[in-house]
């Protein structure tokens, strides 16, 4: 039916869109959203392989990816709030204290 390679390419494209998004946006929240994109791309990959290799372990792994994504979002947003309180901005270019 649908060849596996199509799914892989799809996940690849979405992943790279996420990477580019991390690289080019100045708003931290949108950067986090791009990270979600990357995670979703990985999920697509896992489920596709799980389907084609007839192994349900791939879906179990998606489970865990989901869990981690949730945890990461929570902590990330909390940090952003704390940063905003401290610096008053969420523009990444402003947050450059850890430099030489």
């Amino acid at each position, binding site marked *: 039916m649908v060849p596996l390679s199509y799914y892989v390419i799809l996940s690849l494209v979405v992943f790279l869109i996420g990477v580019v998004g991390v690289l080019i946006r100045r708003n931290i929240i949108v950067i986090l959203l791009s990270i979600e994109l990357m995670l*979703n791309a990985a999920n697509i990959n896992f489920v596709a392989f799980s*389907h084609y290799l007839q192994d349900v372990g791939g879906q179990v792994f998606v489970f865990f990816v989901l869990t981690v994504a949730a945890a990461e979002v929570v902590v990330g947003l909390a940090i952003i709030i704390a940063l905003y309180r401290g610096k008053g901005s969420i523009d990444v270019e402003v947050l450059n204290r850890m430099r030489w």
Partner: protein
Amino acid sequence: MTLVLFFYFACVIVATAVLVIASRKPVNSALALLVMFFHVAGLFILLGAEFIAAVQIIVYAGAILVLYLFVVMLLNVRADEGYHRQIRVALIAGLAILIEAVVLLSRSRFANGLSDSASPAPVATPGNTEGIGRVLYTTYLFPFEVASLILLVAMIGAILLAKKGIFDRPTVGAGFKPAPTERKTD
């Protein structure tokens, strides 16, 4: 039929992904992401992972995205002033990696292999949910417990980090309290 559906889902996914990273307003990005989540769920159903599809919508679309929207509203974020200076380099790098990955893919085993032959029956009975459950609580029991711990830690972290006054005068630790005015002679 499946192919058509796949292409539909795929196109929308890619389009909304681009919208996510390209929108000026963060709210627009979040909403585009929402649409993407739904279509990813659809893709999962196409692949016979109904349970995962459901969990995707519940957790991602229903919890994580809502969280994002909360924060966006809370911080009253305005529109961005533009992309980062390195956009050109980033796009070129991304494109280059894409091409290389495709080339890699074309050389690999399953380019010809697995395409149609394993025309899979959906994951065999007893059904997706039960299948996942069987494996999750036996083979992957330990990671399951660890995952719950991760969630616990995330919760604690979030509470602590977002608490007001967390970065004020340190009160925990060595018990050292610099006295405010001790300059007058006793």
